[in-house]
């Protein structure tokens, strides 16, 4: 905690400028990743997890753009803005150029594992050739050494007969095997950080378990840090050290994993945990979160979760809470963005509860002001 984090993200905002309006996919998130840590980025589909993780590599696709915030990696500025002489925002001088990010950061320093192992590998090149290409690009190895390294890595991730499999094409691999290939690819570049974007979502549950065990072992062996993007609280519990819960582009709770599970501070996280299928509960006992997540193009006023929140009060419609430290554990802060905690001091306790209407169409008492 005391040492400088590997990666620091501050107030990152990524927006998509569409014809229908500006989509605030990532709206001011801050988090840190320390060396050797697996940090979770959790939330429902559309919460902005993947956009956030791609922003770290400055790989947001058109019409998306990082509009604010600062990303620092090993003391270098991956992204940073400053105010110019005429009040305009401009890129900071110490911000790495596109070329520097491409040549020195992507692959070398930060590697990725994507969600869909079926689509992530190029169908017309051999699996080995693809790993080797990335090794040659990101490490100072000759072609022959790179090939040997690729074969060693394939063995390392548990692919049998790696010498033969090296020459095979992606369609000759099963889904789980392909995901192992992608992990081998990421580790073979010897990065300090790996972004794993829902790497087990497309897999069978049994395979998912194997992959998680594999990553856990390899993470310990190589000491690589991970940003683990997922919607699955079960996976979070198994693998993550610290967790960031995202809702509609914001991080609403941030805590070490045990804290998050046993001392949950945000109603959304609570709801996520309750909606998780567990062997000791029947389907009837599951409590899905009411409603669907609103569009990031027109987020609700106040707390963005209030229309679906069981604890919502009138004040939640007015006050938009920034995450604040509500507790501490293991030397890490436990942050939550919910006004029911005393640190916010906006009069939650006195505020009248919101009438819960299924459609949210009826006027809510004392809540006309909206903003």
């Amino acid at each position, binding site marked *: 905690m005391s040492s400088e984090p590997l990666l620091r993200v501050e107030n990152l905002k990524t927006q998509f400028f569409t014809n229908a309006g500006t989509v605030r996919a990532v709206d001011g998130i801050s988090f840190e990743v320390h060396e050797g840590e697996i940090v979770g980025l959790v939330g429902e589909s559309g919460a902005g997890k993947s956009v956030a993780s791609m922003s770290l590599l400055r*790989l947001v696709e058109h019409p998306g753009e990082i509009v604010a915030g600062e990303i620092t990696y090993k003391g270098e500025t991956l992204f940073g803005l400053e105010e110019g002489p005429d009040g305009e925002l401009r890129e900071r001088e110490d911000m790495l150029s596109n070329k520097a990010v491409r040549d020195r950061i992507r*692959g070398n320093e930060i590697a990725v594992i994507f969600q869909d192992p079926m*689509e992530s590998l*190029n*169908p*017309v090149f051999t699996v080995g050739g693809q790993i080797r290409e990335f090794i040659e*690009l990101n490490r100072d190895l000759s072609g022959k050494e790179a090939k040997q390294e690729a074969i060693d890595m394939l063995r390392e991730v548990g692919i049998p007969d790696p010498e033969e499999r090296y020459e095979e094409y992606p369609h000759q691999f099963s889904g789980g095997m392909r995901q192992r290939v992608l992990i081998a690819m990421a580790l073979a*570049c010897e990065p300090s950080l790996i972004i794993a974007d829902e790497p087990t979502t497309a897999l069978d549950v049994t395979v998912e378990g194997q992959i998680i065990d594999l990553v856990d072992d390899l993470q310990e062996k190589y000491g690589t840090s991970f940003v683990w993007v997922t919607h699955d609280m079960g996976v979070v519990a198994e693998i993550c050290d610290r967790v960031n819960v995202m809702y509609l582009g914001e991080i609403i709770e941030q805590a070490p994993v045990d804290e998050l599970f046993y001392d949950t501070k945000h109603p959304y996280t609570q709801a996520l945990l309750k909606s998780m299928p567990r062997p000791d509960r029947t389907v009837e006992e599951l409590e899905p979160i009411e409603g669907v997540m609103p569009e990031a193009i027109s987020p609700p006023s106040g707390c963005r979760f209030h229309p679906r929140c069981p604890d919502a009060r009138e004040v939640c419609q007015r006050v938009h809470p920034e995450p604040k430290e509500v507790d501490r554990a293991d030397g890490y802060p436990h942050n939550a963005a919910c006004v029911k905690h005393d640190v916010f001091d906006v009069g939650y306790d006195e505020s009248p509860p919101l009438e819960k209407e299924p459609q949210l169409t009826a006027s809510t008492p004392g809540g006309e002001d909206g903003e």
Partner: protein
Amino acid sequence: MGLLRYTTYRLVQAIPVLIGVSILTFALANLTPGDPVRLMLQGQEADQETIERIEAQYGLDQPIHERYLTYMGGLVQGDMGHSFHRNASVAELITNRIGPTLLLVLSAYVFALATSIPLGIIAAKRRNDPFDHVSRIVALFGVSTPSFWIGIMLILIFAVQLGWLPSSDLVYPWWSPETYGHDGYGEHFYQVIRHLLLPMIALGTLQMATLMRVERTQMIESLQGEYVKLARAYGVPERTIMRKHAFQVAQLPIITIVGLNLSTALGGSVLIEFVFDINGLGRLFYEAIIQLDYQLIMGITMIIATMFVIGVVITDIAYAYIDPRVTYGESE
């Protein structure tokens, strides 16, 4: 199965197709109105006895299936029959005329591929830019304009108005420079290109337009692929992504279209040969049809069908070579 065995296998598979084609053309040629014997006599009066004698001489009194078998028997020995109009062997006529047509069609494809692939890639890269819009209009023009009209316009502009290029005939590269009085191979080659340029463009424009649009669509799709995202995330330069990662996947449909459009190109060459006064197979075919020269019609149809089938087989092999997912006909 290796590539060689696969090739053999595909060629063997083509035999039934060719037999089918031969049956069909043979039947059609026999169903067309007009009597070969009367055509042979070229308007001379003849009594019934003479006609029957001639029919017997050429086996025309035999039932159709026997005549077919006789024909096929000759065909496998390289004997395609005799053209009475030209008093020459069909095989010889075709051999003399096939060169210019092949030269024309192949160069049209070279032109189409050499232009459409780079243009399609640029259009994909600059999607919805002015370049993309211009290329779309050019493609629309290319697809909707008949090739003979393009040919006539090219002659009017580049041969008649500007006088830059010749408007008729080809210079055959397989003939020696002395035949044309050319000064060495340099000038010979230069003349070959000069003569080929206009008909090649006229015939190739349709192919170019089609291929350019397909290339654009395929590249756009390929560039959105996860594997391209992954390559970017590993720091692969955009240029390499364009040339390697996205490119190779995008070429698969191009190959299919090249193979299938071979028939359009061969058909189009008939008109282009007329416009540019080229002594190719297409013109020979046209004349044979006008003159009801059955033997020649049969022969040329078989040759064109064979060329098409070979084109498709080459396409399949190229496909299997580029796309590892295509198995060589093995049962898995």
